[in-house]
């Protein structure tokens, strides 16, 4: 109530109306011979005399009601209601794996949808909102719209995934949507389970609506199977982590197909990081599954897959003017046979592409472009693919790298000292694995029957060969590259990964069986089948023509598995504290009161005329 004194006007005005009413009631008296006929003429009206009286009074009451409404409108009453207050709002909905976690009052995603719905419902008439859903990839679920029903429908359609959170893309997408709209505001609905975000500069205001209250989760963070050279048994490596603040009892079971290989009860202390190793005598190669039986909030990280490879040594041709570190590191890799050459002619190179599993060009430009095979380029120019060497960078620091990529898994590049490097200009279709600032220094390319990996610096110009991660990096690289021709071999990927397979020439489409048994048809273009719908954890199977592929998707993401509630959102140096929904603002009620008064007056008018 902004002007309560205005209510005082009610007294004199109501007095005037009542006075006029009383004056109006004075009927003209007319003496007539007899009311005999009149008595009957007005009988049906008189019959319900109480109502008549009421109706007569009703007019007065209606007039008084209209007056009261108008005066009340003058007093400028308001209610505090959640309102977006004429803003362009972008809602960023996190649909990643951690949002599937059960929490107090439904899953985090359900709560997020509910809070997003509250925001949508708080929209005013001129407000607009857009919805960005982000998981492994960010997408605009609905561009700016003022239509609440469409927004609510788009919200409802948002599906949970088992993917890690790509909040960076989601946020950038939201900010670019918000653009230069005035009073734009971005609501980020997430549990904060993702790596710190880069700082962003945007006129839009960013608000963080935190989801998640508890943290009760045990996750499989790593699962690998390998057979040391000469060994009979596969060594299976499993890393578990208990994120819960209390001890957890769980049962770990290892399966190959439907066969239970091993099972073990494990008790994990709060926060414990446990590594389990198993020696398993496997009769055949194939996919191993680790199952974690435990009562926790997030089931997606309770399963992991690993591929037990058959023991066949990989042949690697190292073309180098001389690099002892590289040579020695390759030689000690298990099941790798290293060949050396100082240089290759074009014909030799073409033959070598098919002969060797992997070719490593150290500071040597490949004399011919490979049709298939696997090529690693170290400070070497490509054949137009996958990279061309750009300008030189002095003492770059690797600031960002894709630790989820098989090549860089378990490798820490943050402290690597590099004297000088050449920036890599990735060709189309190549992905950047590591950057120094905004320049690419590690690039991978994956095509049908061909994989290429390029490093922008000479390893001898850095302390990388002296680091613990170097043999791991080489091992990862060789294994990843060696899969170039092993398309039919099962692989394990992270949720949301983009998979490309070389399809048989005659196949136009491929049929994919998803973990839940649904089938999906994918068209093959240019001899390639690309599949992106790897949002769910489990085993996938694809068939194109007479060729078959199998792959497994598991989470293995410490950020997603860590369900601990985050109090703030870090954007570079900036911190956004967890906030509430749209603010409550004064919503004036006088238009409604005026409308009400108008309606009452119309009703009064109608009633008045009905009496004649």
């Amino acid at each position, binding site marked *: 109530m902004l002007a309560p004194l205005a209510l005082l006007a009610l007294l004199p005005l109501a007095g005037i109306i009542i006075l006029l009413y009383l004056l109006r009631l004075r009927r*003209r008296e007319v003496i007539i*011979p*007899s*009311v005999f006929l009149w*008595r009957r*003429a007005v009988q049906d009206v008189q019959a319900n005399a109480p109502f008549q009286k009421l109706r007569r009074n009703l007019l007065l009451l209606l007039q008084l009601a209209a007056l009261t409404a108008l005066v009340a409108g003058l007093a400028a009453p308001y209610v505090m209601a959640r309102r977006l207050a004429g803003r362009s709002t972008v809602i960023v909905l996190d649909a990643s794996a951690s949002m599937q976690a059960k929490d107090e009052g439904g899953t985090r995603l359900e709560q997020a949808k509910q809070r997003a719905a509250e925001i949508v419902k708080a929209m005013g008439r001129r407000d607009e909102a857009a919805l960005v859903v982000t998981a492994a990839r960010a997408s605009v679920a609905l561009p700016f719209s003022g239509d609440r029903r469409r927004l609510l429908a788009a919200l409802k359609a948002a599906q949970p995934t088992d993917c890690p959170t790509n909040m960076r893309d989601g946020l950038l997408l939201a900010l670019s949507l918000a653009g230069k709209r005035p009073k734009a505001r971005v609501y980020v609905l997430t549990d904060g389970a993702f790596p710190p975000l880069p700082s962003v500069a945007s006129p839009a205001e960013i608000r963080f609506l935190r989801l998640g209250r508890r943290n009760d989760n045990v996750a499989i963070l790593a699962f690998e199977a390998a057979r040391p050279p000469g060994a009979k048994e596969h060594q299976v490596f499993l890393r578990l982590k208990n994120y819960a603040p209390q001890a957890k009892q769980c049962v770990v079971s290892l399966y190959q197909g439907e066969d239970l290989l091993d099972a073990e009860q494990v008790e994990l202390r709060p926060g414990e990081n446990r590594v389990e190793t198993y020696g398993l005598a496997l009769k055949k190669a194939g996919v191993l599954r680790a199952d974690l039986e435990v009562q926790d909030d997030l089931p997606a990280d309770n399963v992991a897959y690993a591929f037990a490879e058959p023991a066949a040594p990989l042949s690697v041709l190292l073309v180098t003017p001389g690099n002892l570190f590289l040579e020695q590191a390759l030689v000690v890799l298990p099941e790798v046979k290293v060949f050396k050459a100082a240089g290759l002619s074009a014909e030799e190179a073409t033959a070598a592409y098919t002969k060797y599993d992997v070719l490593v060009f150290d500071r040597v430009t490949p004399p011919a472009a490979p049709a298939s095979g696997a090529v690693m380029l170290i400070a070497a120019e490509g054949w137009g693919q996958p990279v061309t060497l750009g300008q030189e960078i002095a003492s770059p620091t690797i600031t960002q790298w894709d630790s989820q990529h098989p090549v860089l898994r378990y490798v820490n590049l943050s402290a690597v000292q590099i004297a000088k490097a050449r920036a890599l200009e990735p060709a189309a279709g190549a992905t950047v694995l590591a950057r120094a600032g905004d320049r690419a220094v590690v690039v991978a390319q994956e095509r049908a029957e061909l994989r290429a990996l390029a490093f922008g610096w000479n390893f001898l110009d850095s302390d990388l060969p002296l680091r613990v991660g170097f043999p791991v990096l080489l091992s990862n690289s060789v294994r990843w590259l060696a899969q170039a021709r092993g398309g039919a071999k099962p692989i394990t990927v992270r949720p949301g990964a983009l998979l490309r397979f070389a399809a048989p020439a005659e196949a136009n489409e491929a049929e994919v069986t998803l973990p839940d048994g649904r089938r999906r048809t994918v068209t093959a273009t240019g001899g390639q089948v690309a599949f992106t719908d790897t949002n769910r954890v489990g085993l996938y199977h694809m068939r194109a023509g007479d060729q078959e592929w199998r792959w497994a998707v598991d989470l293995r993401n410490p950020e997603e598995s860590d369900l601990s509630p985050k109090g703030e959102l870090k954007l570079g140096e900036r911190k956004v504290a967890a906030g509430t929904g749209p603010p409550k603002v004064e919503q004036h009620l006088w238009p409604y009161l005026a409308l009400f008064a108008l309606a009452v007056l119309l009703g009064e008018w109608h009633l008045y005329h009905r009496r*004649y």
Partner: protein
Amino acid sequence: MSRPAASRSTRSYLLSPQFLRRLEQAAIASRRIMVGRTKGERRSARKGTSVEFADFRSYTPGDDLRYLDWNAYARLQRLFLKLFMEEEDLHVYLLLDTSRSMDFGSPTKFAWSVQAAAALAYIALCSGDRVVLFAHAEGEGRNSRIYRGQGCAPELFEWLARLRPEGGTVLSGASKWLLNTAPAPGITFVVSDLLSPDWEAAISRLGAAGGDCCALQVFSREEFQPTAQGDLRLVDSETGQAREVTMGASVLRRYLRERDEFLTAVRKTCHRYGFSHLFVVTDESVEDVILKSLRRLQVVR
């Protein structure tokens, strides 16, 4: 609807001489044959001495031998007595409503009624009938003596001129009083607006008594077709009862429907007893009503 001027006392004003002359040629016609008091010009229920043959009956000793039918005796050898119609006078009763409700209209219903009563009485006097005037209102009823012969007309007019409209309408009581007071059955003219809930009782009482009756129902123009507008408080002139009415098309429509139903009901009730009914609005002239409308109804000939 203003108060009327005081009633006129002179006979000449009551009815114009020209009108009186025209009235002298008229006569009251009754559809029923009733017993009169003295020898008159109307066929009586009694057998009597007129020249008009009525019936035969067997002779009984003591009968007047003058009326024996000797021709019949010659043929049949039996004695028959010839009976002739008796002609007697007619009793004409005029029941005049002098309640306050009659004191409305232009001319007032009361003035109109007095004129009409004078005209009817004059017709009756001229044709040698007996006339008795009854003026009724709530609380008092007055009746005149029996007038007979044209010479009584001034006295009759005088009596009429002395009447004043006052009191309420008690139709039922008035008819009962008339029947008790009337010396013999006759034709009764009821001049009233009949605006009283007991109108039906009054007519049926007259009907049960066996006499003839003609109801002359008088309305003012305003009653027939109200013109008042606005929010009105209608006050009954007799009872003081009030009705609050907001005049408008629908209320007027209801009133007119009610009026027509009322008139139809009165007419039907009258016809049930074989009575005549004439509805008159006071702006019609008395002369036309008496000499044309009543003639059409064959009450006057």
